[in-house]
């Protein structure tokens, strides 16, 4: 379970990232964070992945207070979450397989575990047949699938995605979101920051709407612009 109580983030230049957020996300939930650019979606994700520390308030993840986690402990926290970005962030000189394996290599997993887990993750995202391709040789949708495989290869309980469909056409966007939904159904908590109205409207999941860093709407199920 992820809990935020009175969390605010004021940047050094006095810009407010998020303001007095109170939020609880249960294990296995599927949550959309929506809002315009600058509304605080990405700040919230960065607070969860400990790229930023909150100025005020407290964050707990699975009962552990991570508000001011020491830098040396951040890596352990991030091993419990998969992170997906809009720009995929793949290593262009590594193949699809190597990119996914890289996630296990850097957390110093054994070669045996890598050989066993990478094909499973690639199967899950439907890219087993393209494991030897370089990112430049596959489509945007497939690159994002690779990034998702890399994020889930270690079976993290939480998946954070920052605009995962931002660079994709509607068809690919739909496929990516369906893939993430399948991952969610395995029990993974999913938090997606997006301003893709069509996707949010189609999925009818929990929607947290942010404006100027504040939560203006938190619907259990709904579309992008629904009222409570």
């Amino acid at each position, binding site marked *: 379970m992820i809990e935020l109580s009175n969390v605010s983030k004021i940047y050094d230049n006095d810009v407010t990232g998020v303001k007095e957020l109170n939020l609880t996300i249960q294990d296995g939930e599927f949550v959309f964070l929506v809002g315009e650019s600058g509304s605080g979606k990405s700040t919230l994700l960065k607070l969860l*992945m400990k*790229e930023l520390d909150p100025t005020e308030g407290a964050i707990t993840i699975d009962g552990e207070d991570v508000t001011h986690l020491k*830098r*040396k402990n951040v*890596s*352990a*926290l*991030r*091993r419990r979450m998969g*992170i997906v970005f809009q720009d995929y*962030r793949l*290593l262009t000189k590594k193949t699809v397989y190597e990119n996914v394996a*890289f*996630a296990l*290599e*850097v*957390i*110093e997993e*054994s*070669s045996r575990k890598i050989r066993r887990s990478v094909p499973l993750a690639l199967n899950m995202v439907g890219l087993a047949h393209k494991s030897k391709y370089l990112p430049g040789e596959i489509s945007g949708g497939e690159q994002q699938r690779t990034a998702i495989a*890399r*994020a889930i290869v*270690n079976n993290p309980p939480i998946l954070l995605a920052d605009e995962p469909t931002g660079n994709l056409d509607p068809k690919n966007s739909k496929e990516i979101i369906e893939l993430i939904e399948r991952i969610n159904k395995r029990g993974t908590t999913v938090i997606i920051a997006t301003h893709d109205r069509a996707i949010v409207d189609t999925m009818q999941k929990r929607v947290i709407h942010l404006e100027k860093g504040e939560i203006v709407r938190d619907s259990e199920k709904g579309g992008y612009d629904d009222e409570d």
Partner: protein
Amino acid sequence: MRIRTIKVCLKDGCKGILRNGLMSLASIGTIAACLFILGLTFCIVRNVQQFTNDLGNSLGIVVFLKEGVTEEQGRNLAEELNARDEVKGARYISPDEAWMNFKQTLEKETGLNSDILSELDQDNPLANCANIEVYLYDAQSQASFVEYLETSSDVRSVKYSNEAADMLSSFSKLVTYVGLALIAILVFIAVLLIVNTIKLSVYIRRYEINIMKYIGARDSFVKLPFIVEGVIIGLIGAVVPGCLIYFAYYYVVEIINERFSSVSYLFNFLSVNTIMQTLIPLFLILGVLVGIIGSSISIRKHLKV
């Protein structure tokens, strides 16, 4: 840390050097040049120290003993002095030996036959000149040693060259300080160069580092390949001037000894092995340290993700 992780870090470190081939080469070259100058400075400083030491050693102290001090007491005092740490050698010279030495010196310097002084053998004019000749390891300790001697009840007077010892001691200190300052500057330059090379390497791999941090890599895992890269650059940059100095020093000393025998008569050069005994560990330690410090400084900023 797993063996495979260490292997990966070593491989990545080597790859980094090859990836920034020219920059690595430039760094190795400049570090080698720095360490070469450092090595030369070291050779000069050590030889000057040796030279001043030799000169200091040849500055003997003559301790004249009081009238009435027996030969046994004199020999005992010489033995007592010999036992002191700063004393290289102390030898009791009896009045008879002093007279004999005088005669020999006179004959050598004036060409007079020493037989003409034989008549005085029965009535030794140097009867009161029993003395102890003392040689010290280090001219710098002369002042305190003389002070100590003057407190002895058996000592009449002490003959020594204060100015010469002071001058040698100051000169040796000056050379050491200048050498140390130069070495510090060169080490600083070497660190700066490594920092720049590794910074370039980190910059090229910043994207990869960023991903590694997001997927839960420990700082040490991210840092290690760059430290390996820095250490390898530092080590190669140390080995090259080490070899150059070995051969250069060996041949220069040999040429001086062969062609300028008057210099080698005055100046006893340290052997190449003596120089290398200190220089090789110094170079290796400096190379590794410069590599570790330089790469740690370069990557620090990029770990804050």
